[in-house]
């Protein structure tokens, strides 16, 4: 406030070290409090000025109204963005899921509105937010790295504790004397003229800044250049490895070669004459479904091994395992109409699965032991499930398949006598 008196008359001998060699850009007036700034803004607006702005460390309530700023059109921008996002997201899903590449996923419809809602919602939000963010920048004329008022030292304090009002000289009503008087009458504690730069060296971008921008842009292009080169040329060199110690680890992978052992294999097989703990599996009936009769070749067993107790719980367990492992191909009813054959057929191919319950079919004729063996080791294109399903569960599945076969060919005599009345 020491310079209050110095600034009564705008003059080239301003206390601020601003060179007065260029054209006048505008007048900056300082006010003591946000309230005074607000009043001053109202007076300047009432005097008919339009090319002016106020600068304060924080938003001042009511400033928009005092300055005569119209309500922002940002809501409309956001609405437009949100609507675009909504339509775009719905269209995207329709085009991908229902038009360009419809795909049967467990028989669900390719186009169903409830399934589209989350993406439509997200699309709306995303585009609303982006249009709000960038719309705000554009409407506020950002980014703005330089402004002529920056030449004033006083302006540097505007983010701290100073309240400024600046009128630009390009305003039609601008007149140095009367404008200054207006600001003065509005209670300014300091007034300052700001001039445009004339020194040609300072009007251009600093050379070091230019160098940084150019070189960083060039560096940023290097990865793209490498990718572009690799896509358009041939090379005998191995791949480029960024982390070679991760790509080449000192360990063996299964079924690879190595010189360390005499047989040249990295794999070490079981040592002859030994059995791993818990892998003896001596019981042929339980582990392989084979029954040893009185001499001769072992036959497929027709019953169940003695370890298996036939009860309701085992059937339930068998159903549970069957529904997990078998239904994708054989279907829930065992008729070979699972999701996989149906989907392949829908795509024009063929992946037939055996009908397990067909009267007189292969699965019906198989003894239990052979059914067990088929689950373990596979048949035709079916792979074995020995790795996935433990032995006892395989027997449970055998039991359930028998139950399925019987249920598909049930006769009146199968119904318990006390429940016959409930059948119509």
């Amino acid at each position, binding site marked *: 406030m020491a310079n209050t008196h110095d600034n009564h008359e705008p003059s080239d001998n301003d206390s601020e070290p601003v060179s007065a060699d260029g054209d006048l850009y505008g007048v900056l007036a300082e006010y003591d409090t946000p309230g005074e700034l607000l009043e001053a803004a109202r007076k300047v607006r009432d005097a008919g000025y339009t090319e002016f702005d106020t600068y304060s460390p924080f*938003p001042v*309530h*009511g400033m928009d109204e005092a300055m005569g700023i119209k309500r922002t059109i940002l809501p409309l921008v956001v609405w437009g963005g949100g609507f675009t996002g909504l339509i775009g997201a719905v269209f995207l899903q329709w085009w991908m899921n229902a038009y360009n590449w419809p795909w049967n996923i467990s028989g669900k419809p390719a186009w169903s509105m409830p399934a589209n*809602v*989350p993406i439509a919602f997200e699309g709306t939000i995303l585009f609303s937010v982006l249009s709000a963010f960038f719309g705000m920048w554009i409407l506020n004329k950002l980014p703005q790295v330089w402004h002529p008022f920056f030449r004033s030292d006083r302006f540097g304090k505007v983010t701290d504790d100073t309240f400024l009002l600046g009128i630009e000289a390009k305003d039609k009503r601008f007149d140095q004397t009367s404008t200054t008087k207006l600001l003065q009458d509005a209670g300014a504690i300091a007034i300052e003229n700001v001039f445009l730069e004339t020194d040609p060296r300072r009007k251009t971008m600093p050379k070091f800044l230019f160098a940084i921008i150019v070189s960083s842009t060039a560096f940023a292009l290097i990865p793209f250049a490498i990718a572009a080169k690799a896509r358009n040329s041939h090379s005998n060199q191995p791949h480029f490895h960024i982390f070679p110690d991760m790509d080449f680890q000192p360990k063996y992978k299964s079924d690879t070669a190595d010189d360390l052992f005499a047989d040249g294999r990295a794999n070490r097989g079981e040592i002859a004459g030994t059995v791993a703990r818990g892998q003896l599996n001596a019981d042929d009936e339980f582990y392989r479904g084979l029954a040893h009769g009185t001499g001769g070749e072992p036959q497929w067993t027709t019953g169940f091994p003695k370890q298996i107790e036939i009860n309701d719980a085992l059937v339930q367990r068998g159903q549970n395992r069957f529904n997990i492992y078998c239904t994708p191909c054989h279907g829930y009813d065992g008729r070979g109409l699972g999701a996989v054959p149906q989907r392949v057929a829908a795509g024009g191919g063929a992946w037939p699965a055996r009908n397990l319950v067909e009267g007189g079919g292969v699965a019906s004729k198989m003894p239990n032991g052979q059914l067990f063996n088929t689950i373990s080791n596979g048949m035709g294109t079916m792979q074995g499930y020995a790795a996935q399903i433990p032995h006892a569960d395989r027997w449970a599945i055998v039991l359930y398949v028998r139950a399925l076969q019987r249920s598909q060919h049930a006769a009146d005599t199968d119904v318990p006598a006390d429940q016959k009345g409930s059948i119509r």
Partner: protein
Amino acid sequence: MSALVKTLHPDEKIKAGNIGKTMTRAGLGIALVFFAISIILTLTGSASGGHDSKWARFFHAYLIGWSFIFSLSIGMIWIVILHHLVRGRWVTAIRRICEAMACAFPIIFLAGLGFMLPLLFGYEDLYYWAHHDAHNEILNHHLLHKLNFWLTPGFFFVRYCFYGVLFSAIAWYFMKKSRQQDESGDPKISETLRIASGPAMVLYSVATCFFAYDILMTIAPKWYSTMYGVNFWGSACVGGFSALALIVIGIQRTGRLTHSVTAEHYHDIGKWMYSFTFFWAYTAFSQFMLQWYGNMPEETHWYRYRMFGEWKWVSILMVVGYWAFPFAILMSRWTKRIVPSLVFFAVWQLVFHWLDLYWNVMPSYDWNIAYHGATKIVAGPLTGSVSQHHVGFSPVDITVWIALCGVFLVGVGRNLKGNLIPTKDPTLPLSLAHEVQ
């Protein structure tokens, strides 16, 4: 316009005077007349279904109307607690009215005995699980047997009393302390309420969810959704703020609070109405989406009944009327700042909030009528042919609702006395100068 703080306008009328008494009397009149109409309509058999179902219809309508008025107070006690919890400012000018609406809880609680006492003394046609026959069925259900102790009329009534007492106590405490501050002007009371608001919010949230599970979700005891509580709460807040807008505007028309409550406050009430409308839609869809996509029969039966057949049109009406229309229009600034427009949307949202509760409860009743002739309510999963999904609208649904709205006015009117504004609240000057940016 620009001041950061304002004092009460010298000409402001802040005393309640006789408006509380007028409101109580009007509410009492409405309640008596419309209960009488409802009972006559029920006795003369205008309700659909067989003989026994007439009272079942009445009690279903009663449950909907009662949940409706309960939810208005649920919404208002929320804003009171939240205001203290976050050191809110703008609410202060209208907070006494919010408190008065929240303090309707004791009266609402008593009104709820209208369906609670019959349940306690053996009435079985409202809550199906109260049936003796239902117990065996529930015991056999793979999940419900765990609820066997939960769904007994005695324990149910205990929980009902717990909700009533808890909500009444919270509302009463915040109202009492606020009135104390009017007299003493002690700013420390604000501090005390701020400390109380944290635990109150936790209790409130949990109790509100369980209230919804108990009172509304058990109408269909074989269906469950953990989202249900929060969905009910969202709808309750829509109703609460809509009712608040109407009551504040009504009080202003008597010449009171004309300087203190401005378009800025309406704007913020409208914003809450708007945001909870969306919140309701968001949770309602989330609840639907998971069950629709999961496609498990024990969950989808509830939606199947509402998605197909006649109820489909009610569901579509809900999406369009409760969400899409207010979402599109109430988004604009002016729709919340102009009184006629705000009144329109407040009434609109109250009607749809009621319809939301109707949509939640009534299909279970209609299903019984369609499948069992409703000599007894025997609700199970809402299965059966789509062609029989039936909206059995009855005038009793509306008259009971209006009667219970009268009860709500009685509950609110009782509390409109003394100052209508917390005159010595430290945040009042900020609230009076409130300005929406």
